[in-house]
């Protein structure tokens, strides 16, 4: 059995464990809520995690299309980039997948050189995933600061402009 087939077989258990570990990065009362509330609108964080992690795992075990990966990783990171996590903790959940897969496939990979070699390649994919996660995190943080800067700019500039204190380019005096 190839690693890909093995991971497909164990997909449900792996994704469930990954979800569990990510949810456990929140405080106990919160993680309980994130796991139990199934309504997507009452629990957008839990729902985004569950959908996103499953899709990212699917993609990682399959063709690893960058755009698809980003489309599912982005909503998760977008949330964590605002919450009380350092940068490393906001994106570090990607590496949980390495440990989980090692645990889940320990029996099969033991003494199986082919599987072990495949595993090394697969772990590189997870490293790539982490780098993508870091890119997304940076984009989100930059967006937050851009929004902050725009708010200040719009408030003052628009008021000045309306009050006639800003000269339009066409009205610049000619020298």
């Amino acid at each position: 059995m190839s690693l890909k087939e093995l991971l497909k077989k164990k997909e449900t258990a792996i994704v469930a464990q990954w979800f569990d570990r990510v949810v456990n990065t929140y405080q106990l009362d919160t993680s309980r809520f994130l796991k139990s509330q199934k309504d997507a609108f009452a629990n957008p964080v839990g729902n985004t995690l569950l959908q996103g992690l499953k899709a990212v795992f699917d993609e990682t075990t399959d063709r690893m299309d960058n755009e698809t990966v980003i489309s599912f990783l982005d909503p998760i990171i977008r949330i964590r980039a605002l919450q009380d996590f350092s940068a490393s903790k906001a994106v570090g959940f990607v590496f949980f997948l390495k440990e989980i897969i090692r645990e889940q496939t320990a029996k099969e990979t033991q003494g199986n050189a082919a599987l072990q070699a495949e595993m090394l390649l697969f772990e590189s994919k997870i490293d790539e995933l982490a780098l993508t996660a870091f890119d997304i995190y940076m984009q989100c943080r930059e967006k937050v600061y851009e929004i902050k800067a725009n708010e200040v700019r719009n408030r003052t500039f628009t008021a000045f402009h309306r009050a006639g204190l800003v000269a339009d380019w066409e009205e610049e005096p000619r020298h």
Partner: protein
Amino acid sequence: MADDLLKPDELLARTDHRPPATGWMDTPVNIRKGMYCYAANPKSVEYLSLPYARQWNPVEDDWKLPENWKQIIFEGIRDRLDRFRSFKIFMDICVRCGACADKCHFFIGTGDPKNMPVLRAELLRSIYRNDFTTAGKIFGKVAGARPMTAEVLKEWWYYFFQCTECRRCSVFCPYGIDTAEITIIARELLNLLGLNIDWIATPVANCFRTGNHLGIQPHAFKDMLEFFVDDLEEITGIRVEPSFNRKGADILFITPSGDVFADPGTYTCMGYMLLFHYLREKYGFDITWSTYASEGGNFGFFTSHETMKRLNSKMYAEAKRLGVKWILGGECGHMWRVIHQYMDTMNGPADFLEEPVSPITGTKFENARGTKMVHLSEFTADLIKHGKLELDPSRNDNLKVTFHDSCNPARGMGLLDEPRYVIKNVCKHFYEMPPNTIRENTFCCGSGSGLNAGENMELRLSGGLPRANAVKYVHEKHGVNMLACVCAIDRAVLPPLMDYWVPGVDVTGLTELVANALILPGEKERETNLRGEPLPGMEE
């Protein structure tokens, strides 16, 4: 965040991602950048004659509290337990069933358990138990009591300014506890020590001085509306003539100053002007603006009952001075909660005004019998119902609209159907967000109750996640590209919220949509909407 980077050895020591499992009382408050608003400018605090005006910084250890601060808080609680029966009941009857726990947008978005309404209330309740109940005095922590300390005070400040007083949690409480009222009292207590935030204190001082939060003086207020007159003439070919401070007018119009100065609220403001012009031309409608009562919003509501009363009274003093019959109110959020739930017992009865009757349809607004103030959406819905507006909804054909129920008009006064009725008559494409995110269950914008500052953007964006998540759903499912609302704070804060979570969705007030569709007598062929964008079919 990037500014608290760890050294490699520290990183290695912290590979466990699980947070420490301490009880809430033993989890110290961590005042995090992006989650709090700057401290009040002492000049603003002083201007309002509120106590202990001083420079202080929330992230410094020393908050420069008065020596007897514990006594002040103790007496402040005692005084309020006597004055507000609701507060006493809310302190006593919670059984911690948890029905409210997961209903708060700040809890859902930040994942911080102290933002569960029950736990946020418990921050104050634990002190109440300790100082005012026998069980708390005897059993202490076992009875959920703890003594007041500087740490507790900081925790109060941090979390009671992470509540937008939206009252979603109260909808789910089987005992009817209004957790927003607990936040209101807690903020009053903090104000006894001069611990307000600047985004509230300075607008309140401005409003007290100039009549509006932004501190716009009467001539500048008038200038702004006159700029809009020019813009409207360019768009419609018609020169509207708003009247200001006119004694003897039938009706006084009051709206948030945000509509006058902040995009996209300015387009809503232009919409008001166009609607009033139409009604005057067609039906002789007689309304005046005031450059003194130039603010519908009331950030005094987020400071103390007394401050709210002071600011609210200016609107009625102006109505009396001008001798109008009643007041028409624009698209504002908490203005309506103040009017609907507090005004009558606070500054009422406004018996110098008449019970509002629409001069155009003859409809009596019996719901406004006490306050003499009618919501523009009700007024407009009544006009449409009676066929008094000539409308061309196809001018809004490029819009796929959804409606965000602003917390205060929705939960605070039950204004649920009128805005929808108006939208459906001026737009052809309207889509509701999922039922558990609208009407009484609406999710807050995340920036109400004076939290719409810039420095707390992480708080605003995470608190707004549940709302944005529902918008994202209709955006993806139906192609919704316009989020309508009837609140000036919404109009100011939803655009950045959409920018972060759902790019491609714009924000509008209701009356902007009405004015786009309104066919004015004698208008030129309209080529653009109020934003100067080409109307459907008019694109080059």
